């Protein structure tokens, strides 16, 4: 049985990694080094500053697939990546 799924999506110069395990899921946007996950706590959160991993901002959207679609839509529509803009879309 396949219980864990790892995906890599390429959109322009961005790579979005997604991973799911029974322990939680994660989305990483590279090379901007942004992580969204629900590991260790049930609530979904984003780590907006890669240099301060402990800094987490909760987001209201809970569904990983919907969050991924929002990120893809944002990246497809934007010429540059701004984590604040993305957070607004996910709140």
């Amino acid at each position, binding site marked *: *049985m*396949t*219980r*864990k*799924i*790892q*995906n*890599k*999506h*390429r*959109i322009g110069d961005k790579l979005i*990694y997604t*991973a799911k*395990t*029974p*322990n*939680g899921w*994660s989305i*990483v946007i*590279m090379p901007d*080094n*942004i*992580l969204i*996950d629900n*590991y260790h706590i049930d609530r979904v959160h984003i*780590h907006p500053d*890669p*240099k301060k*991993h402990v800094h987490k901002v909760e987001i209201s959207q809970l569904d990983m697939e919907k969050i991924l679609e929002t990120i893809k839509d944002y990246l497809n529509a934007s010429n540059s990546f701004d984590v604040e803009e993305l957070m607004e879309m996910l709140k």
Partner: protein
Amino acid sequence: MIITLVKKQTGHEFIREMEETYNSISELEKLFERTNNMKMYVDLENWRYYRDNLDEEIELTESLVTNKLSLSDLDLIILNTIKHEKPRSIRDLANKINKDVSNVQPKVKRLEEEGFIKFEAGAKNSKIPYLTFDEIKLEI
């Protein structure tokens, strides 16, 4: 068009890949502390999970949205031959599909650049091509 490459592996194989990339889980922990690379953080979480779940099957996919990719009949023959006949070199691949190696070489190089195949070292400096996935899915 969305192209998705699908590969299946077990937790055991995933851990072997992690060991090849990072050596050990403690090395990865140190590396993450030094770099704050979030991909490493996720690899770390997954590695910890898989230590206790070695036989679980993982589906790895790589999706690419593009309108540029075109796979010719020869590309598909090359991919099919690599998968099913396991050529030992590019020359061996060319022989198996009855083509001149000079025509096959650039095709193989492009398939490598697009992430469909990789090479491992073979005998006498030859390169053994292998597929990086089990399935290709196309969505239009």
